[in-house]
């Protein structure tokens, strides 16, 4: 490449601005919380993700499951962020949000959909009990796996489900996060 050609390649300009687009089919934002950075996403007014997963993995899954028009936009998530912050500050016990389990398998949907009614704020239940609640009494292990893949963490309270012996077992956001949430609910 000649000197002129490389000067053309480097032709720089100041003050470039990224584009501004209309409200996305899937809007997402990264939200810092006491239990770590969470990726929150909303599609057609319903929460599709509240997750500890990384941005690339989660947005790729959302592009495939919902729509490829996925954009980083904070404003459509204002209400979700506010409710989550209130919950994490101990001043909210239930979420007034619609959820869409587009990222879940049919079995995960069965386990997750009614979790807010199968659990209650400040109390824990067990994998076996949840399995019985959905009429799959032998599926405690599969229930554990389904809860571990919860795409809408905190809003769908999989953290309230623990092992039969009371052990915390596991959590997508790490055991410290699960402990934080259970302590928060216990004292609020």
């Amino acid at each position, binding site marked *: 490449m000649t000197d*002129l050609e490389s000067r053309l390649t480097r*032709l720089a300009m100041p003050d470039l601005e990224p*584009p501004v687009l209309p409200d996305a089919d899937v809007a*997402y934002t990264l939200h810092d919380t006491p239990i770590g950075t969470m990726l929150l996403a909303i599609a057609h007014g319903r929460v599709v993700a509240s997750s500890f997963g990384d941005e690339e993995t989660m947005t790729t899954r959302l592009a495939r499951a919902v729509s*490829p*028009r996925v954009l980083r936009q904070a404003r459509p998530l204002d209400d979700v962020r506010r409710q989550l912050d209130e919950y994490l500050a101990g001043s909210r016990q239930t979420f007034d949000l619609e959820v869409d389990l587009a990222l879940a398998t049919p079995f995960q949907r069965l386990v997750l959909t009614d979790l807010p009614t199968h659990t209650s704020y400040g109390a824990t239940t067990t994998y076996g009990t949840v399995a019985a609640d959905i009429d799959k009494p032998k599926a405690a292990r599969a229930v554990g796996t389904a809860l571990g893949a919860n795409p809408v963490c905190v809003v769908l309270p999989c953290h309230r489900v623990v092992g039969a012996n009371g052990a915390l077992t596991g959590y997508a956001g790490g055991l410290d996060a699960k402990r934080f949430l259970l302590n928060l609910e216990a004292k609020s």
Partner: protein
Amino acid sequence: MTREKVELPPFQALIDAHWRDVARLARAMAGPVDGDDAAQRAWEKAYAAYPALTSAKNLRSWLLTITARCATDVHRARKPQRPLDEAPPVTVEGPDAAAWPDPDLWRAVNELPERQRFAVTLKYVGDLDHHGVAAALDTTPAASRRLVSDALATLRSKLGVDDD
């Protein structure tokens, strides 16, 4: 008839990877003011068309082609219709060209005839090959080669560089 499902990446990934290239190319083609307008329009068009794409390959060239078309439209809308090669050169308006890095090159590029300026900026600012340049300008790779080579010759003589 069912269309085969194409696994398109999230649109935000395209923006993050390419928005600077789109903005630079649009400004180089249409000038600083019209260029920003053209880049914005290009993204709106791309966003609208995105879910219907039938291939996830060459998304960057797809974006730059849309940008080139928008830059042409925006720029051409500003002046009376005339045959392409008689079109007057853009003048650098808005932000002071002298404040930009390499102002001499900027001025010389802006004074090129339109087709030459489009071809040379697509080739070097857009980093497209002659097939990509040709697709964006609705012409042939051979014509793209000629336009770029004429543009380089003009730039060399204007800038007084001799680097063949």
